[in-house]
């Protein structure tokens, strides 16, 4: 149980696919606690994924309940093992920053509503939730870490994005 240092790109683990967890044991519970401690220690952080603290397993935590954008629409603290997005709808652009890519932020398009299924490490039960708004963005961002994706892989425009239309002949 401790705050772990956040790995920063170009650490290779951040670009690797994380492995599925077979079941809950003491090691997984300790990992979840480390993720929670690390999230709570990060200024303004609303989520951390295991690869960010050097563990290549499909585990992440999300909690947007104390954030400006998520305080009115959230499921509180989510400790997600093997999360999977079952359905998604809508899309919206948000400018995202990530503790693993300091100093830079980028505009990323995400689904505005998602249904996520995961093993809840706090109850030991399979759980399915419908998340929307900022919580949905945060879950998608953390789950990307489990697939070795950073927001940089999804940036939609390096600039504000006003382009001349292509002339088709």
């Amino acid at each position, binding site marked *: 149980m401790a705050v772990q240092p956040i790995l920063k790109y170009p650490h290779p683990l951040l670009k690797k696919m994380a492995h599925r967890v077979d079941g809950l044991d003491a090691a997984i519970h300790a990992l979840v606690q480390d993720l929670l401690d690390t999230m709570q220690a*990060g200024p303004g952080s609303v989520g951390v994924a295991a690869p960010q603290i050097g563990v290549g397993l499909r585990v992440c935590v999300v909690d947007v309940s104390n*954030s400006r954008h998520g305080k009115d629409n959230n499921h509180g603290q989510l400790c997600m093992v093997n999360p999977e997005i079952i359905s998604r709808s809508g899309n919206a652009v*948000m*400018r995202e*920053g990530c*503790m693993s890519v300091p100093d830079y932020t980028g505009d990323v398009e995400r689904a505005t509503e998602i249904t996520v299924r995961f093993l809840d490490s706090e109850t030991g039960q399979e759980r399915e939730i419908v998340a929307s708004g900022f919580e949905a963005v945060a879950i998608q961002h953390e789950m990307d870490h489990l697939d070795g994706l950073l927001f940089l892989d999804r940036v939609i425009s390096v*600039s*504000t994005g006003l382009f001349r239309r292509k002339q088709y002949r």
Partner: protein
Amino acid sequence: MPHRELTHYAVSVVGADRPGIVAGVTEALYKLGCNIADSSCAMLAGEFAMILIVSHKKPFTKANLIEELKPVCEQMAMTLSVRHLPQGEEDRKETPGEICQITVYGADQPGIVYRVTNTLAARQINIMDLQTKLAGTEQEPVYIMLLEAVLPDDCAPETVEQLLNGLKQELQVEISVRIVTPVEL
């Protein structure tokens, strides 16, 4: 490498667009051992413009840089300007306020950029990025401006909207303000 061991220059190159401008300029910089610390290149009308902040380990002079870049630029008939940055000027001063994206568009007329940016400057709103385009048809030209600005601490996004509302009426243009402050995930 610690910054004090580096010397920085602002370089700009503008010329008629063609393939090979970036390759030509960056080849010269690479041969000199310069690093491109920050850069932005864009096509503006038929011109290609490069703005770069380059660094080099000391000792190094502006003359070294110009000596290598000048022939490349002359060969492609491009203007070159180089300015040495005083120590510390290369550091980006981060301001803590909200970031707003402001879109302005409407029938083309003189003074759109000036009037909007002047209003922002008077309120100490700092522009970080700005692009303008002339669209529409020759008969009905439409001016489009997109900018991003950091608001001072005592200035709410609604205040910006109010500030610009007067201009919206006066110039008969559309103005919208949107917060794009990044979320930390």
